[in-house]
């Protein structure tokens, strides 16, 4: 078998094992903690008899392992159970909201990725001079803020100081594409800010790393302009780490999206998760938590696979 293929298969298999382990943690971790689903539904004042009845009804008296296996088997077939609080089918509820989350996240990604790469290139080109210091200073500030604080700075600036947007992001079924885009403009700006900083800093670092190579010196000595050197010689060699970094940061959107959706009251998966954590609706939390974890792990695997495939040194293992 080709060594690269072998590495890739190993990495994907490892990721799947990790995902399985995470599902065990999410399921059994919540089960092992004090207080169970029946207690959560009935509240602290429930009588022992009604607790026992509800436990029987929910199948909580089965051993944890068999409940986990039943849950996992059903989840793999798309059956995530019903929400405890309102009895709605979880898979249907998720299906309605998943699209909204993906729309928000992909709009942010489409803007953030090219912008981060361009800013990273500019910062690397003017390394140590004022454009670099300006870009690095701004991104350092946004990194040190939590997502919701950054969000309120943007909201304050763009709804109060310069009133061009509404501070809530409502999307309705049946809205046109452009209407939707205008509605999510603010949350997208915030998400771009959140992921841009990391992506840009790591792009800059990747380029600067390559810039120390001998062939860059050769290119400089034969008289190319700095931008030509970066564009023709440094960038192609830095593509692999940059792509890996970009995907890793897209995984970071998973966290950002949860907070930003709550900030803007945007009806999607993150808001759905937080709502049901507050209501202590365990089946929903387990299902949505697993989805977020799966996306995160999946993107991490993808980043690793890309860096394996694009690294020529790994193609010829000793």
């Amino acid at each position, binding site marked *: 078998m080709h060594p690269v293929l072998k590495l890739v298969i190993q990495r994907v298999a490892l990721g799947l094992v990790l995902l399985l382990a995470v599902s065990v943690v999410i399921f059994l971790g919540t089960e092992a903690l004090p207080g169970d689903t029946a207690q959560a539904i009935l509240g602290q004042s429930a009588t022992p008899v009604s607790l026992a009845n509800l436990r029987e009804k929910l199948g909580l008296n089965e051993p944890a392992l068999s409940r986990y296996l039943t849950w996992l088997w059903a989840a793999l077939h798309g059956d995530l159970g019903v929400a405890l609080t309102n009895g709605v089918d979880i898979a249907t509820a998720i299906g309605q909201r998943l699209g909204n989350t993906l729309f928000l996240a992909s709009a942010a990604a489409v803007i953030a990725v090219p912008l981060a790469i361009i800013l990273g290139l500019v910062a690397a080109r003017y390394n140590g001079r004022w454009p670099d210091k300006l870009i690095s200073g701004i991104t350092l500030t946004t990194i040190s803020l939590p997502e919701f604080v950054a969000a309120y700075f943007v909201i304050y600036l763009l709804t109060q100081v310069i009133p061009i947007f509404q501070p809530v992001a409502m999307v309705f079924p049946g809205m046109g594409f452009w209407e939707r885009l205008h509605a999510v403009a603010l949350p997208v700006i915030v998400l771009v800010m959140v992921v841009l900083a990391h992506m840009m800093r790591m792009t800059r670092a990747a380029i600067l790393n390559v810039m120390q190579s001998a062939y860059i010196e050769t290119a400089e000595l034969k008289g190319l302009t700095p931008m030509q050197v970066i564009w023709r010689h440094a960038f192609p060699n830095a593509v692999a780490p940059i792509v890996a970094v970009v995907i890793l940061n897209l995984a970071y959107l998973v966290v950002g999206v949860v907070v930003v959706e709550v900030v803007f009251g945007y009806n999607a998966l993150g808001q759905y998760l*937080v709502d049901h954590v507050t209501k202590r609706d365990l089946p929903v939390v387990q299902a949505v938590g697993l989805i977020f974890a799966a996306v995160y792990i999946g993107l991490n695997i993808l980043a690793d696979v890309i860096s394996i495939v694009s690294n020529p040194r790994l193609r010829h293992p000793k």
Partner: protein
Amino acid sequence: MRIPLSALVGMFLTASFVFMAVFAQLLAPYPIDSAVGGVWEGPSATHWLGTDTIGRDIFSRLIYGGQITIFVALASSLLAFSTGAFLGFLAAVRGGWVDQVLSRAVDLVMAIPSLIVALVVLSVLPLNLTVLILVIGLLDSTRVFRLSRAVAVDIAVMDYVEAAKLRGERQSWVIFREILPNALTPLVAEFGLRFIFAVLFISTLSFLGLGIQPPLADWGGMVKENKDGLIYGKSAAMMPAMAIAALAISVNLVADWVLSRTSSLKGGRGA
């Protein structure tokens, strides 16, 4: 030794935040939880930063909120450090299956974003200070574990550690008397970063309604209480938001400086 201006500013701001937190009860002009003015009044001589969604003095609540935010962040970063560093050193010294079990467990927790883990766990546990500190501290300890294990692995092969082992010292001696003093410098710089992480984490949880519960409020919770004001053009939510930003940035400035000093220390002992 010259301290750069940015680090001085950071130290001064951090110190004043800590001072306000410690003496909150003496400094706050109004009680934490009673309406003393109209709803969403602007800043004035009586209410320096205005009033909030039910007429409480924002300046006083900011001071009390800072006390909670800083206390929770400090307690959880101390917890993160004691457990993370101890287990990290233990993994490095013992090696073998102890190292494998601890490292794989940490890999597993770090494979999911901390916020998602916290949300899942908090859906079952009761929301109180102890639980919040434990959750944030233990999630944060995974990062301390990785760092201290990496540092201790380098130290564990040094001659003086070998010597201590050969003269038959106990494991606790090796960890606390040989490894800890030599690993302290890189860990101190890390402490600032972990503290910021804890501040951001508790603020985010409170903002989502899953952290400090009313009538108490930390800064994240205050943003949540006042966020609807922005729709009517009331900027009360911006005050706690700015406080979080100021604390995070000022601790960052100090940590950056400590980090640059400790990394220059590695080269030679002169600096």
